[in-house]
């Protein structure tokens, strides 16, 4: 009896594995490696899940179900690499979306390049990522090489070139400040009046801010993650840096927590981002309304970039799927070529997004239109105004 049970169980297992593998062969698999730590981080994850569920309920991709595999990388490179390896070799996905953090995306690039899986980036801005020259990487957000120019030019021309920089040891924050410093030096021949690297998760910026105040700057750059940026802005008023000194932040300032938590200190803060919630285009208004009602937050550019990514990915997958042969390697190549064929995509981003075939930054930094935004009101009901948009040529800032 025991033997029969074992044989029966083994057969059942084999049949179920076979059924699963057959079912899986029909699906299109999307893998996601994402920073899902904060409340907003989880909401980005929810946005992907909801969108893919919507695709599936409306017939999937050319009738094929989309299988979404979502992993949290906690913004740690070790986990990002493990996720990319797992998604590429074990989950056999057709395309990878991720990551939120540049320090995670960067080491994922050699993994996906070796595995030949297309990866499309929703948030990471570090210019180093596309400089790797991988043919398998695509970036939806604006690269830091464009941000540095627009922010530096805007600040220098509107506030002045006496700029004080305070940044934290985070890749995007440091990259932003250092690139801006280098650009101002190159273009205007001016060094920053003050430059300081604060500690990780710094809570008290007052000593740095007092030193910055003593240099009588035209502009103060607070470049950090959400909490550090908020503290730096709030404390800049506490130490008595006058309102006339322009406050500048990196693209993190587009996150809803910054105006909400900084309150009045957010007013007048300028930052470059890919999307402004105050955008008056109907598509933007509709999106803001949708995110507010579904997820309870006013969307920053992290939401808009994810939305744009998913919106452009669907037709790309539909196009690629028509040429699917069933061989994963060639199917992945078809997806890559299909994404590379996206030109002049118009979505929530302030300018068109275009990719091309070569694995160069010119081809893979799809969005070249940063928008300069300024907060006009802080607190829960924050408001912004668009100070201007610039579309760069593909090789700018390289």
């Amino acid at each position: 009896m025991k033997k029969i049970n074992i044989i029966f169980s083994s057969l059942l297992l084999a049949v179920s594995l076979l059924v699963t593998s057959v079912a899986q062969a029909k699906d299109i698999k999307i893998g996601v490696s994402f920073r899902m730590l904060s409340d907003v981080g989880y909401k980005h994850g929810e946005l992907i899940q909801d969108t893919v569920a919507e695709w599936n309920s409306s017939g999937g991709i050319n009738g094929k179900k989309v299988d979404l595999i979502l992993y949290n990388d906690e913004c740690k490179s070790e986990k990002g690499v493990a996720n990319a390896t797992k998604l590429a070799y074990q989950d056999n996905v057709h395309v990878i979306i991720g990551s939120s953090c540049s320090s995670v995306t960067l080491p994922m690039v050699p993994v996906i390049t070796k595995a030949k899986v297309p990866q499309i980036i929703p948030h990471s801005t570090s210019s180093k990522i596309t400089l790797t020259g991988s043919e398998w990487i695509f970036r939806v957000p604006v690269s830091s090489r464009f941000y540095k120019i627009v922010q530096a030019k805007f600040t220098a021309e509107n506030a002045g070139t006496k700029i004080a920089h305070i940044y934290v040891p985070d890749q995007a924050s440091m990259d932003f400040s250092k690139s801006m410093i280098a650009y101002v030096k190159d273009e205007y021949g001016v060094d920053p009046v003050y430059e300081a690297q604060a500690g990780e998760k710094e809570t008290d910026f007052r000593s740095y801010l007092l030193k910055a105040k003593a240099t009588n700057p035209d502009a103060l750059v607070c470049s950090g993650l959400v909490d550090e940026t908020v503290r730096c802005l709030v404390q800049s008023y506490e130490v008595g840096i006058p309102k006339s000194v322009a406050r500048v932040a990196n693209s993190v300032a587009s996150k809803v927590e910054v105006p909400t938590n900084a309150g009045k200190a957010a007013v007048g803060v300028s930052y470059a981002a890919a999307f402004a919630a105050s955008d008056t285009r109907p598509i933007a208004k509709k999106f803001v309304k949708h995110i507010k009602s579904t997820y309870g937050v006013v969307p920053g550019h992290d939401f808009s970039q994810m939305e744009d990514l998913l919106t452009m990915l669907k037709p790309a997958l539909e196009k690629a799927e028509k040429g699917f042969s069933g061989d994963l390697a060639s199917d992945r190549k078809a997806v890559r070529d299909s994404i590379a064929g996206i030109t002049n995509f118009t979505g929530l981003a302030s300018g068109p997004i275009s990719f091309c075939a070569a694995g160069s930054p010119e081809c893979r930094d799809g969005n070249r239109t940063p928008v300069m935004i300024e907060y006009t009101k802080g607190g829960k009901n924050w408001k912004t105004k668009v100070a201007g948009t610039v579309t760069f040529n593909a090789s700018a800032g390289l």
Partner: protein
Amino acid sequence: MDKFKEIIRQYPFLGFVIAFIILMLVPSVFFTDLYQSHLASLICINIIVAAGLNIVKGFCGQVTVGHVGIYAVGSYTAGCMFLYLGSGLWLTLPAAILIAGLFGVAFAIPSFRLEGPYLALATLGGGEAIRLFIENGDFFMSTYGISNIPQPIIFGVPFDTPDKYYYIAMPIMLIAIYFSFSVLRSSVGRAFMAVREDPISAAASGINVKKHKMLAFVLSAMFAGGAGAVYAHLPPGYIHPNNYTVIEMVTFLAMVVFGGLGHIWGGIIGAIIITIVYDLTRPLYEYQLFIFGLTIVLTILFMPKGIGGFIDKYFIDRRFKTKTGAASK
């Protein structure tokens, strides 16, 4: 069978040779994709750290919560040697072991005067200080991390994919385990245990307590440093300060506690199980840390001796049954 056991007992090195042959065959027999090789390499690295941690914590009874800092020292020694000297694993590995050993000396000094939670705090501070120093230092590439750290090339074959790198990590792990066994089964190992049980009695028995505490920290640090170097070269060869936080330290400690403190196999079994469980719970990212934390709490509550305790109990029971059986006959 008994004769085979007797040979292994007499020549333990033979056991490792057999283990090496079996582990060489494991990928081709059991692994179905490259991710499993990546996971196996990570397990090997974690085993090296856990085996080292077991020396200082399990055998010598010294509380350390800063080992992840020494692991970072190993990784960054390898990373910086590549970055500034262009060195490969065969040079960076011994250098990392050596430099980590020196850091072990620094970590051992507080143990002469501090114990328990105070020593834990001191070592925790040390580990975090190392990470923050790296994170804020341009020399260490700060938060950009060090990338493209190369994998070794043997006879013209680059070991640059997860499946190939396993054959680098696995033998290093076996050497580390063999070394750990050799030390712990020697008079030094027994001295460690004496220090753990009662330092005063150990001193009264003629054991130099300070020297043995120092030795335990240094040996343990050398393991962590070696593991750090192997990790730095693990494809794609990227290190970042974010990978050496307190959470990673707690994970290493969990491996030793779950496996069983003071059991030679404890850290090894713990490293295997924790790494696999951590991976299996990856899709449950919302609950992963909760599941992980709960596992540690339940282990400490209901299985204080870890899995090693069960293994010990099994062998003791078997020996008892064999002896009582023989006596009744």
